[in-house]
């Protein structure tokens, strides 16, 4: 009996444990499956240079090629599919284009190629890339024999092949582009002219928009420093940013800053600096920074609501103070010119003297700078209103 009970208990333990183990096994497999799916987050398609120059970090993101006139450069682009499904990707070259504010942009596929876009020949223009895979597409860049010294830019664009839709409204397509910066050796001119700065104010921010023009024949990585300063020259806010400025282009940046807490008159200033040496973009050896100060402008900033309340309270306090001061001066003049001396010859209370002369005891005490307990020792001389004139004045009032 006892042995049978022990056996039954043992079987129960084993059975329960077996089910628990199966449950743990299933749970652990589920955890693994969920973890794997979170690591495989779906992305888009894109690309990057296949053969970056180890000496130039920028060549990891864009193509930088020095090509003599009439020469051919070879390279390839990695076409990347980050998606979970196979993609057919269009690969094509375009000229560079101007975008608002002078930013770098690429022409559309339908636009005629007259610049660097026409120099680029890709081995493939349509590539099928498996999920989470990369395909290299070789290309050549043929510089024209009459290429002039300086930099010219184009693009290699990657775009998923899709049919355009017409559903009403703005239908968006997407593409990734890689800048192709080509340099023809020769007389390289680096120059930037400052054009001015605009100021726009919103509720809580001030946007400074400095403008420059690159009058050289190469693009320049330009550091722009913008600042808001008080009338005393104290810097209230300052920002540094570095952007490329493209040759022959006017570039304007929009730098947002916190609005000054206290309202008032401020100046918006900016300075730009760039490498004036012979370095190509991305090269930093022996760089020589040239700094140009732009023309500042003044602007009036409205105070923040809290600052406005504080300034209003201070203003009211000042006005009250001025009014009180002038009232005191007028009263003092009256006392000095029109009140007469009164000598205390017997013990009197201040209130009685004041009542006899038709004024309040507080006014009498204040005019004579008396302090508590306002005693009037015999022989003290105080100023009091002329009693005769007071009676005459009261008489005129009664009439």
């Amino acid at each position: 009996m006892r042995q049978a009970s022990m056996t039954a208990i043992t079987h129960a333990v084993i059975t329960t444990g077996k089910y628990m183990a199966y449950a743990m096994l299933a749970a652990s497999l589920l955890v693994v499956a969920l973890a794997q799916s979170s690591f495989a987050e779906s992305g888009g398609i894109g690309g990057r240079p296949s053969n970056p120059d180890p000496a130039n970090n920028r060549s990891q993101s864009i193509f930088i090629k020095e090509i003599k006139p009439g020469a051919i450069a070879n390279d390839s682009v990695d076409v990347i599919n980050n998606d979970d499904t196979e993609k057919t990707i269009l690969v094509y070259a375009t000229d560079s284009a101007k975008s608002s504010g002078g930013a770098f942009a690429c022409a559309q596929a339908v636009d005629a190629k007259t610049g660097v876009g026409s120099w680029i020949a890709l081995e493939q223009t349509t590539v099928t890339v498996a999920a989470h895979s990369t395909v290299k597409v070789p290309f050549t860049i043929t510089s024209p024999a009459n290429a002039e010294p300086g930099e010219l830019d184009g693009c290699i664009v990657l775009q998923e092949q899709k049919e355009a839709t017409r559903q009403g409204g703005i239908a968006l397509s997407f593409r990734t582009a890689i800048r192709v910066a080509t340099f023809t050796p020769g007389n390289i001119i680096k120059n930037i002219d400052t054009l001015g700065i605009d100021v726009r104010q919103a509720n809580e921010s001030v946007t400074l928009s400095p403008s420059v023009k690159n009058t050289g024949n190469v693009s320049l990585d330009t550091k722009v420093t913008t600042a808001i300063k008080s009338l005393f020259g104290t810097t209230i806010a300052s920002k540094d940013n570095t952007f490329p400025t493209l040759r022959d282009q006017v570039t304007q940046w929009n730098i947002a800053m916190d609005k000054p807490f206290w309202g008032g008159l401020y100046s918006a200033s900016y300075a730009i600096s760039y490498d004036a040496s012979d370095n190509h973009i991305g090269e930093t050896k022996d760089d020589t920074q040239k700094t140009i100060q732009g023309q500042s402008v003044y602007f009036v900033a409205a105070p923040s609501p809290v600052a406005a309340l504080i300034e209003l309270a201070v203003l009211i306090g000042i006005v009250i103070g001025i009014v009180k001061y002038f009232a005191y001066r007028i009263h003092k003049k009256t006392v000095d010119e029109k009140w007469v001396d009164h000598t205390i010859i017997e013990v009197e209370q201040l209130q009685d003297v004041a009542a006899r002369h038709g004024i309040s005891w507080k006014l009498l005490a204040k005019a004579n700078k008396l302090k508590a307990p306002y005693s009037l020792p015999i022989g003290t001389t105080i100023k009091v209103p002329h009693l005769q004139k007071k009676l005459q004045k009261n008489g005129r009032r009664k009439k």
Partner: protein
Amino acid sequence: MRGNNIVKKLLKLSALMVAAFGIVAGFAVTPSYAASNTNVTQSITAGSLTTDIRDASRVAVASPTFALGAVGFSFSCQTSTGTIGSTAQRLYVDNPGAANNGWTLTLAATAGATDTWKNAGTTQSFDFNDPTTSGCDDGVDADSRPGQLTVNPSVGTLTADCTSCTTANITKGASSAYSQGVLDSVTILNAAAASDDAGRWYLTGVGVSQTIPAEQAVDSYTVNLTATVTAS
């Protein structure tokens, strides 16, 4: 005999439990073998710069479209407004270490500067880049239709969507109206060199307004625009 069966069952139970623990432990712990001359390395490579529209769960939206506010037929020139980028359709830019000196996001007509807004049958149209009288009249351009589209990224909201990145050093473009041959591309975002080399951001609430010519036919119109992200 019975005892042997119990022992076998206990052994099976133990094996199951060990397997379960082993899978979890094996997944959670990267194996490292301490040998005298063996190293285990892990490389993390940069990804590629991308842009698209995704929903709040970061799932790509197929064929995203943004409708401007419907307007009634009018004998006068009028304006319709809308936004690009919303909670359900966010304009994303991913930079997984691909662009190390900044990038730009620009918007231009897919079919080029001569494109127009068209109805489904392409029998009616109006322009998106004619600046004449702010788009109310037709100017000297390739088409004979008025109309002008203005995009204002400065009123949009840029959000960093990763724990290690910020929106610092990314500026939003100024309000710009398309003008054929003069301004064919609008800058939406401009990331400076000091912007995060690895980051993910999305933009919502980009303002758009379109001048609708007087007596424009009643219909639903579409214009195709392409968003391009380019490493600087």
